[in-house]
């Protein structure tokens, strides 16, 4: 009873703190001075049409490197835990290829198999489009990477016994991560600072090959995120950890 009263008090306290968000938050009529500075300076300085991307990749590039590292550590943790658990879970009946996979436990339906086979290349291409056009249109490395991973999910769902080359995933993941850091250091040498995108020519505003190193960096981030998330999905999916 006392615990319940404390819980209600805590909720009421949080509601009281959050109340100004509802009553006092003014509707945004115009950009704040900081936002206006970014919007005005980005096209001239960095040549990127998408200001959000310019902030994420260049102005706050170091933060993005940290986020990518967090995702890498999470992936490594999932791989580590599920690999250790694998042989212990496998109790009896191992080595039987006819053992149904996890999930629903049956082969995918005709509709799922056909639809996934049709959709997977399209979704994959869309993911690549999202991260290569991150400096022009909404989206970027993280979003594109997740879309690539969802294309892999379609493949996993339609072919339960399908295998993914973990060596290839690891190779893509580490190579793109290392190149990301290398490009950052290159910006330190050739341009104004770490992860400065002006180490490559800015090009014509609004074209695909423009905005310096931003498309390259975001493509690397997209490949890295896509490989990591596909790895997580594959680790979660496969019951037996022998191929991990």
């Amino acid at each position: 009873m006392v615990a319940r009263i404390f819980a209600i008090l805590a909720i009421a306290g949080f509601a009281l703190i959050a109340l100004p968000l509802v009553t006092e938050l003014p509707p945004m009529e115009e950009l704040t001075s900081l936002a206006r500075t970014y919007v005005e300076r980005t096209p001239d300085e960095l040549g990127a049409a998408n200001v959000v991307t310019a902030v994420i990749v260049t102005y706050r590039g170091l933060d993005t490197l940290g986020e990518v590292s967090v995702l890498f550590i999470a992936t490594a943790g999932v791989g580590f835990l599920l690999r250790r658990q694998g042989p212990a879970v496998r109790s009896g009946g191992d080595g039987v290829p006819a053992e149904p996979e996890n999930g629903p436990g049956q082969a995918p339906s005709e509709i799922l198999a056909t639809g996934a086979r049709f959709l997977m290349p399209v979704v994959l291409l869309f993911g690549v489009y999202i991260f290569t056009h991150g400096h022009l249109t909404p989206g970027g490395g993280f979003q594109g990477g997740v879309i690539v991973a969802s294309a892999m999910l379609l493949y996993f769902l339609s072919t339960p016994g399908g295998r993914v080359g973990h060596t290839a995933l690891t190779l893509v993941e580490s190579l793109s991560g290392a190149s990301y850091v290398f490009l950052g250091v290159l910006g330190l040498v050739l341009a104004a600072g770490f992860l400065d995108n002006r180490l490559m020519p800015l090009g014509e505003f609004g074209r695909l090959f423009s905005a310096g190193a931003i498309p390259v960096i975001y493509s690397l981030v997209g490949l890295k995120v896509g490989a990591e998330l596909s790895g997580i999905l594959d680790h979660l999916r496969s019951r037996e950890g022998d191929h991990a």
Partner: protein
Amino acid sequence: MTTALIVVLGVVMLVAAVFAVLHQQLVSAVIAAGVVSLSASVVYVLLAAPDVAMTEAAIGSALTTVVFLYALSRIRGAKGGSDGS
């Protein structure tokens, strides 16, 4: 018009969130949590934040839901039965 749509989506999010917390079946709760994210991503589009909307739709409603469902099926497989549904 936009405000009305945002209010409707907010109500949907609240209902789905309460459903996710209170419902006994975990699979339904996971799906309801995905509905919360999907509605949130539509709200982001209405508020002219397509970058955030894309992230929310792809990660919040798609990938997180799938990871939860895979985790649930693994837990059930480890228990070795169809209990705890």
